[in-house]
């Protein structure tokens, strides 16, 4: 597609439930990033995928968070046993490679009630 697509755009879930967020990067972009942005805060790096290399998971806040990417296409971010502090906008970005400007999606707004 023309841009980075994220779905759903909004998600309300009950505390303790699992959620899965999806990101479709720009075609041909080998690098894909997930960020979390809490209300009024900056972007918090979560995880980075580059081609077939092992992902950089250094930003994942706990073992409840995981992400997968199939080749150089779709990525899913999974949050298990959601907590209220997980409420945030989850942003995905892609780029041709590390060290190039990124294109962000519009994000998924997650609300845990």
């Amino acid at each position: 597609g023309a841009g980075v697509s994220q779905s759903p755009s909004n998600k309300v879930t009950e505390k303790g439930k699992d959620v899965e967020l999806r990101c479709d990067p720009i075609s041909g972009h080998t690098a894909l990033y997930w960020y979390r942005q809490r209300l009024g805060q900056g972007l918090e790096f979560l995880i980075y995928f580059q081609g077939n290399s092992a992902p950089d998971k250094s930003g994942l806040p706990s073992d409840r968070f995981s992400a997968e990417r199939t080749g150089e296409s779709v990525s899913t971010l999974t949050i298990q046993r959601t907590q209220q502090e997980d409420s945030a906008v989850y942003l995905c970005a892609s780029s041709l490679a590390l060290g190039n400007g990124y294109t962000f999606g519009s994000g998924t707004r997650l609300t845990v009630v």
Partner: protein
Amino acid sequence: GESVGLHLPTLSVQEGDNSIINCAYSNSASDYFIWYKQESGKGPQFIIDIRSNMDKRQGQRVTVLLNKTVKHLSLQIAATQPGDSAVYFCAEDRLAFGKGNQVVVIP
């Protein structure tokens, strides 16, 4: 730890004036810096980037200056327009984003 941060939380600027947003970084090994703009309710939008082997880079109405001696980065916006009202983030590649600097353009 290493960090990237912004000095001023809010900048109010008259329409037509120039804006300057500043950012300090602490990792002297940083090689690549990016400025993003984020409008309310939207994802960040890439504005301009600069590599450490440069000290200035210009785009359309924007200029990024890099001072490696004092580890300082700035974004200059010429002839600020109402559409420039947003939060501006500086970043060291993918790893570090500050809270952002709100720019408010006064018509």
